[in-house]
C-alpha cells in the first residue's frame, strides 16, 4: 500500500477532526506559490510562447510576424536536414545511453569489490562529468587533429598510420568521433548511482546463493540486476532526456558539420532560430523535440512512480 493510500485511509477514518481538503487548502498553495511563480515565469511562459511562435513566420528579430498555421510543421518532413538530424538523434541516443550505462555498471561492480584506491578511482572516473563541455570539446578537438592530434600520432607511432583519419573532417567518422567524448563524460554518472545502489544490496543474498551453488553469473542476473531496477529507471530516464537535448558537444566540436553530417534536432533548431532568422520554423522543431522527449520519458516516469507507490 502506498503512502498516499495510507493517508487517504487515515483521513476517512471515523472520528477524524475534519476532512482533508482535496487540493491541500490555501496554506499549501501559499507555500507552493514562490516555486510555482518561478516555474511559470521561467519555464511555462517561455514554453507557451515558443509554441505560439511555432505557428508563425517570425524571423526572430523583426517586430512583426504572420500566423502561418501548421506550415512550419508540414515543412519539416520535406527538410532533408531534419531527416538527417532525426537519424543522428536516434543513433546518438542509443549509443550514448547503452555504452555509458554498461561501462558505468561495470566500473561500479569493480569499485564495489575489494579494490585498492577506490576513492581515487571514483574521482578519476567521475571527473569528466564535472568538466565544462566546451573544455571537453576543445580537448577532444585537439586529440582528433588530423595532423598533430595525439590519436593520429599514436596510430602512426605504433605502425598503424594507415588508420589515421581526419576524424571530425569527414561524414563517415564525424558523428562517431563526437560520440566518443560523450560516452567518456557520461560514464561517471551511472557509475555513481549504480555504486550507491550496489552498496545497498543485502550481502546475505549472495552468501545464500553461494551456499546454494549459484555461479557468479547467476548471482549477477538473478540478484544484482533485479536489485538495481530503481537505479536503472533513474539512469535511463535521465540519460534519455539528456540525449534528446544534445547540443553543446556537437556545436562546439563540429558545428553540425562537415556540411550537415552531424546535425541533430537541437543544433538544427538553433541554426534556424538564431542563424537563419527562421524563428518560427526553429521553434516548431523545438516543440517536436519536446513532444518526443515527453513520449519517451512517460513510460519511465510511470514505472518509477508505480515503484514508489507499491
Amino acid at each position, binding site marked *: 500500500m*502506498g503512502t*498516499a*493510500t495510507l*493517508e*487517504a485511509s487515515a483521513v476517512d477514518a471515523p472520528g477524524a477532526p475534519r476532512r482533508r481538503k482535496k487540493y491541500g487548502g490555501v496554506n499549501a498553495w501559499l507555500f507552493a506559490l514562490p516555486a510555482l511563480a518561478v*516555474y511559470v515565469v*521561467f*519555464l*511555462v*511562459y*517561455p*514554453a507557451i*510562447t*515558443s*509554441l505560439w*511562435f511555432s505557428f508563425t513566420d*517570425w*524571423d*526572430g*528579430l*523583426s*517586430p512583426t*510576424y504572420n500566423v502561418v498555421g501548421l506550415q512550419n510543421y508540414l515543412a519539416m518532413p520535406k527538410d532533408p536536414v531534419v531527416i538527417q538530424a532525426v537519424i543522428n538523434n536516434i543513433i546518438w541516443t542509443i549509443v550514448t545511453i547503452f555504452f555509458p550505462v554498461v561501462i558505468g555498471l561495470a566500473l561500479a561492480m569493480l569499485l564495489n569489490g575489494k579494490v585498492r584506491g577506490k576513492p581515487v578511482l571514483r574521482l578519476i572516473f567521475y571527473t569528466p562529468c564535472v568538466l565544462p563541455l566546451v573544455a571537453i570539446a576543445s580537448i577532444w578537438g585537439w586529440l582528433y*587533429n*588530423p*595532423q598533430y592530434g595525439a590519436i593520429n600520432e599514436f596510430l602512426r607511432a605504433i605502425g598503424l598510420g594507415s588508420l589515421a*583519419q*581526419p576524424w*571530425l*573532417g*569527414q*561524414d563517415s567518422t*564525424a558523428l562517431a568521433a563526437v560520440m566518443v567524448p560523450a560516452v567518456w563524460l557520461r560514464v561517471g554518472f551511472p557509475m555513481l548511482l549504480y555504486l550507491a545502489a550496489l552498496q545497498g544490496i543485502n550481502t546475505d543474498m549472495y552468501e545464500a546463493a553461494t551456499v546454494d551453488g549459484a555461479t557468479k553469473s547467476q548471482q549477477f542476473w538473478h540478484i544484482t540486476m533485479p536489485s538495481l531496477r530503481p537505479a536503472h529507471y533513474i539512469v535511463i530516464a535521465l540519460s534519455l*532526456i539528456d540525449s534528446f*537535448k544534445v547540443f553543446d558537444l556537437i556545436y562546439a566540436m563540429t*558545428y553540425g*558539420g*562537415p*556540411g*550537415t553530417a552531424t546535425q541533430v534536432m*537541437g543544433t538544427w*533548431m538553433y541554426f534556424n*532560430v*538564431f*542563424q*537563419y*532568422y527562421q524563428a518560427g520554423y*526553429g*521553434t516548431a522543431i*523545438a516543440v517536436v*523535440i*519536446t*513532444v518526443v*522527449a*515527453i513520449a519517451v*520519458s*512517460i513510460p519511465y*516516469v510511470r514505472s518509477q*512512480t*508505480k515503484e514508489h507507490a507499491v
Partner: protein
Amino acid sequence: MTGTYTRRGFLGLSAAAVAASVAACTGGGTAPAPAGGGGSSAPASNNLRVFTYEDNSTIGMFKKQIAKFDAQAGTTTTVDSLPGSGAAVYPDKLRTELLGGKGPDVWRIWGGQIGAPFVKAKQAMDLAPYYQKFGWDSKINTTAIDGMTFDGVKGGAPFIALGIGCWYNKAAFKKAGISGEPKSYAEMEEANDKLVSAGITPAGLGGKYGWDIMRLFEYLLETSAGPELHDKLLTGQETWDRPEVVTAFTNFKKWQDKKWLPDGALGLDPSDVEPWYVQGKTAYTITGPWTEAQAIQAAKKDSADFGVFQLPTDQTPQRHSGFVEGYMINAKTGNPEKSAELIDFILKPETQKALKISASTVAGAEPDPKELPLSYQWSQGPAKQPFYTIQDQAFPKKVADQYFAIQSDLLQGKITPEAAAKQMQSAVSAWAKS
C-alpha cells in the same frame, strides 16, 4: 482513489516539467518578441555600452581609446567583447541581447548579409542624420558606405574595408625554391607543387564553420569565371550550372587531392589553422591584413620574415575578395547623440591609427609603415584594386551554409563538380526568387 490521483498528478506534472524544460531552451531566446515595433526608448543617459569582437591583441588599444572618448564626452562606456568564431556566433549573441531588451548602444558588425537583418528589422538606427551631422559621406570611402547601406538605409558607419590576400612565410617559400610571388594561377599551382615536394603544406585553411575554406573557392571562381560573371553569380542573375563554375569546383577538389590543403581541412578550426603559416607549419594562408597584428606580431615575429600578395586570377581587373565592418547604433538607445559621437570619435584618423586599423575606410588613416609594414604595403597596392563581396556576406547565412555543405560534399568525393554546380544553382535560385 487518492493514491491513483496522486500518481497521475505526479505523472502529469513530470511531463509538463519535461515539456517546459525542453521548450524553454528556445523560448528563453525568442520569447521576448518586440510588440508593436519600435518600443519606447530607454531614458537618456551618459552610460554607453559597446559590443565588439576585439581579441586579446586589440582589446587593450580599443579600451584605451574608449577611455579617451569618455574623458572628452563625459560619458561612461562599457566595452564587451566576444572574440573567437568570427561571424558564426557573434551576430547570435548580439541578436539575443537586443531581443532581451538589454542590447548595446553601439555594436560592431560586418556588412552585407550579416549586418543587413539588424537594419531590416529596425533594431539598428538609420544613421543618415549623423552622416550629415558629422560629414561621414566625405570622410569615408564610398564603396565601404555602400556595404553598410541596406535598401537605401545607411544602417552602419564602416570603419574598415578589408581585402583578402595571400599571407606567406618567406622561409617556407625559400625552402621550396620559390623565387618570387606567383603572378598567374599556373604559377600559384606550381608553387604549391614545390611546397608539397619540400614537405610543406601550402595553404593553411580550416573548414569548420565553412567561411575560411570558402575564401579559396571564391578565389578559384573569380579566376575561372572572371569579374562580371562572378558578380552576376553572387546575385543570382546568372546560373551556377555552367562550365566556369564546374572548373572552379574541379580546381577546388584538386587543391585537396594534391595535398595543397592540410589533412582533414574540413574539420579544422580556422583560428587554429590560420596562424600555422607564422609557425612554419604551412606556407601561407588566405586572409586579411589583421593577421599582421593578430598572428605575426602577436607571435613576436618580425613582419620582414613574411610577405603578402594578391592572389593571381589572370583576369582584368585583378580583384580580390573583400568586406566591410562598421558600427551600428541601437534603435532603442537612450542616448543616440552620444552613441553617434562615439562612432565619430572612432572614425577620426588619429583614433584609427591608434587602434592600428590596417585597412581603414577613413582618409588619412593609412597604417603606419613602420608598425605594420605589410598592411601598409597592402594598402598601397592591392587595396586600391576593386574587390568582390566575400561570399559569406554575399549570401544570407542559410544559403551560405548550403554552399558550405556542397563544398564539403565535393571535397569528400560525395558529389562531382558538375553536381556541385547544379546544387549551387538550386540553392541560389531559391534565395534569389524569395
